[in-house]
């Protein structure tokens, strides 16, 4: 079978199931008695196994199969949930994730799973010695029906109301040809006599004639067995009919695990189990298509601004009106399209509980991870990139931040450390914070290290505030951990984290209080592709300044510009703000000597500000950010380019580079 067309769906669904197993395992660890969770995990493993086998990924299938065996025993009360079981299952899940990733990278997803399989087998068999002595009832051959919740409810209700439940097996003549039509006739006859609850094979299969000469069904009825037999025999080509009474107890052999938790906690279980996720109508769309749509839309935006320019020139009221309307519509479209690309940050956060659990064990620390705002949405591209930096920061908090239980006790803190991971929206940005209640950053150590590494001079260090010193940990070649552990502190790291975040258009700062803990805050833009900008003139060239960075615009008198140590500054609301001339920075040729630069755009980065000296302001414009391509990477203070309405290319300024 050609399975290539299904691979995307397979991967998506596999990831979903692995994630659900992950979540449920963590839950199970906290409440090992909860068998509904085991059933959930079992179901996911089972689905995975089926999918993998269909797709021909043998290793995935064999590992999930063995997992399923263990889970099945737990589900049936033959095995107890121990830390060992959870650990091994976690490593199995890890291996499965690796395999799925390898498949998604176009490989065959092969991996040596024999060790894991044998570990699982050992659990499965090893504990079978203290198997519960409740003898597993032999499968009675006369019942093949497996009930789901709904069906067993119907059956038990029917019994209460004086209906009887019968199991009917109908055998057709050997020479019967149109079996489906014949079966249809049987069903039609029976429909007047009661309600058919379940059939084997399924109704669909019977309708397609996919059965040997016989089929079975379960129905709720008030008729007697002989009456039913008679009714069925009135149909031609029926060889044999068997009607027998059916009770739930009979079925319980097969579906013990399902009915058990039900009977123990009848309906008190208002909190629906994980598996019953809220149903929303969704379709899966390849991200590429949305990107294509976005690209096309960007072209529309460019044409729109061209039209806007034309309308301004022609001054035709009807045209202007139409274009204004189009502008509104396209703005709505843009919002929608951006929201399509938005994914909850949950996708990234999901993997952390397990990671923290594993790390805490390894480091012999007790750590409680608290996640809030997992439903905060971020642009897909940002989501894809933000995972690694976050992993690094969390590792960092666990390793360097939270102290060992002994140390914590000494300093009067609870032994269990807290790490919180928070995400929230604010304005045009999303913030992600990682806060721990550990030892905090030691200013002296950072200072000493920075001086040692030549990042700082001794006398300069005295002027700097704590905050400023802390930011040094993001400089390259920096690690304050006394001992390099496996987990972090190889000295490559925080600087990589920072550059990654900056490449996403965000920034990171750290706050810390000795003895109380530290907090890393990451600020990320909501979207990356369409920007609101202010267009400015510098001689004959047009530049775009992102609106998000602009504090204010103003016109200056020559006299207001002062000079401090050779640097031009102005007094901006009582603050001394340095002034830079865009003409000088970008080396724009001076066409017209008479043009006097006196317009200033005040931009900010964090608390710091700077003024950009330009010739004149043009106005606000939505522009589409296009990268400069691979040849022109890392151009100073330029983040990209855009095409304006009249076809001119304008460079987009990166304000972060201009504020020091």
């Amino acid at each position, binding site marked *: 079978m050609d399975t290539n067309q299904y691979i995307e769906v397979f991967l998506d669904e596999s990831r979903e199931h692995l994630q659900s197993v992950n979540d449920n395992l963590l839950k199970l660890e906290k409440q090992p008695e909860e068998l509904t969770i085991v059933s959930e995990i079992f179901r996911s493993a089972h689905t995975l196994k089926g999918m993998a086998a269909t797709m021909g990924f043998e290793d995935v299938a064999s590992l999930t199969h063995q997992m399923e065996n263990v889970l099945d025993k737990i589900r049936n009360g033959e095995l107890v949930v121990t830390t060992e079981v959870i650990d091994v299952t976690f490593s199995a899940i890890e291996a499965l994730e690796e395999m799925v990733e390898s498949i998604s990278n176009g490989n065959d997803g092969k991996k040596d799973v024999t060790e894991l399989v044998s570990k699982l087998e050992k659990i499965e068999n090893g504990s079978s010695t203290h198997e519960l002595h409740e003898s597993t009832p032999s499968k009675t051959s006369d019942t093949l029906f497996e009930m789901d919740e709904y069906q067993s409810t119907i059956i038990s209700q029917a019994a209460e109301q004086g209906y009887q439940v019968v199991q009917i097996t109908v055998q057709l003549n050997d020479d019967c*040809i*149109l079996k*489906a*039509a014949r079966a*249809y*006739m049987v069903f*039609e006859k029976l429909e007047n006599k009661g309600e058919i609850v379940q059939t084997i094979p399924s109704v669909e299969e019977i309708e397609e*004639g996919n059965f040997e000469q016989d089929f079975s069904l379960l129905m709720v009825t008030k008729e007697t067995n002989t009456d039913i037999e008679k009714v069925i025999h*009135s*149909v*031609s*080509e029926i060889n044999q009919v068997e009607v027998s009474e059916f009770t739930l107890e009979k079925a319980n052999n097969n579906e013990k695990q399902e009915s058990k938790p039900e009977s123990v906690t009848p309906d008190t279980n208002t909190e629906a189990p994980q598996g019953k996720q809220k149903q929303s109508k969704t379709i899966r769309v390849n991200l590429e298509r949305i990107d294509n749509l976005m690209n096309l839309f960007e072209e529309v935006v460019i044409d729109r601004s061209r039209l806007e320019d034309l309308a301004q020139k022609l001054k035709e009221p009807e045209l202007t009106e139409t274009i204004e309307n189009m502008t509104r519509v396209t703005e709505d479209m843009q919002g929608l399209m951006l929201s399509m690309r938005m994914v909850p940050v949950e996708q990234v956060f999901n993997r952390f509980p397990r990671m923290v659990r594993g790390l805490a064990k390894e480091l012999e620390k007790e750590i409680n991870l608290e996640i809030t705002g997992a439903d905060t949405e971020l642009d897909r591209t940002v989501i894809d990139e933000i995972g690694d930096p976050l992993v690094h920061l969390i590792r960092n908090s666990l390793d360097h931040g939270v102290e060992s239980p002994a140390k914590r006790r000494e300093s009067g803190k609870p032994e269990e450390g807290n790490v919180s991971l928070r995400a929230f929206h604010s304005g045009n940005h999303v913030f992600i914070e990682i806060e721990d209640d550990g030892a905090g950053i030691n200013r002296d150590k950072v200072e000493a290290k920075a001086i040692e590494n030549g990042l700082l001079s001794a006398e300069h260090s005295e002027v700097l505030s704590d905050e400023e010193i802390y930011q040094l940990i993001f400089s390259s070649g920096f690690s304050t951990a006394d001992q390099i552990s496996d987990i972090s502190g190889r000295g490559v790291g925080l600087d990589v984290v920072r550059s990654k975040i900056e490449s996403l258009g965000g920034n990171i700062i750290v706050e810390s209080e000795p003895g109380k803990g530290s907090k890393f805050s990451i600020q990320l833009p909501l979207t990356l592709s369409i920007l609101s900008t202010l267009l400015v003139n510098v001689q004959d060239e047009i530049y775009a300044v992102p609106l998000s960075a602009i504090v204010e615009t103003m016109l200056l008198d020559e006299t207001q510009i002062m000079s401090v140590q050779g640097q031009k500054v102005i007094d901006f609301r009582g603050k001394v703000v340095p002034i830079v001339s865009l003409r000088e920075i970008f080396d724009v040729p001076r066409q017209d000597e008479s043009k006097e630069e006196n317009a200033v755009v005040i931009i900010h980065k964090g608390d710091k500000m700077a003024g950009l000296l330009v010739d004149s302001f043009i106005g606000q414009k939505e522009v589409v950010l296009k990268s400069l391509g691979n040849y022109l990477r890392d151009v100073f203070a330029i983040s990209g380019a855009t095409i304006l309405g009249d076809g001119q290319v304008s460079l987009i300024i990166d304000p972060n580079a201009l504020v020091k």
Partner: protein
Amino acid sequence: MANILITDDAAFMRMQMKDILTKLGHQVVGEAENGQDAVEKYQELQPELVTMDITMPEMNGVEAVREIKKINPDAKIIMCSAMGQQGMVVEAIQAGAKDFIVKPFTPDRIKESVEKVL
């Protein structure tokens, strides 16, 4: 012993069917060669039982069943189908046909069917 109307567009099939039914002791009161014909003859002859081919010109068997059922909701009709007409057969049953037999017929099968329906 019943009065039966046979419907089939192939004369050969009608002959064969008539033969078998007669041997079983029934009375073939009429033969129709398409659905339209069958509906008219049904009204005229008021047979106790109709055998109905499915694929026929003018009006097919399923439509004919519907028409006849309009005339007499209790009409007893047995469909005669070729292999691979499962869908049509189910449709005919839904329309109210009482049974179906699959070509090629055997006398036993026809006997069983007629007895069950009557």
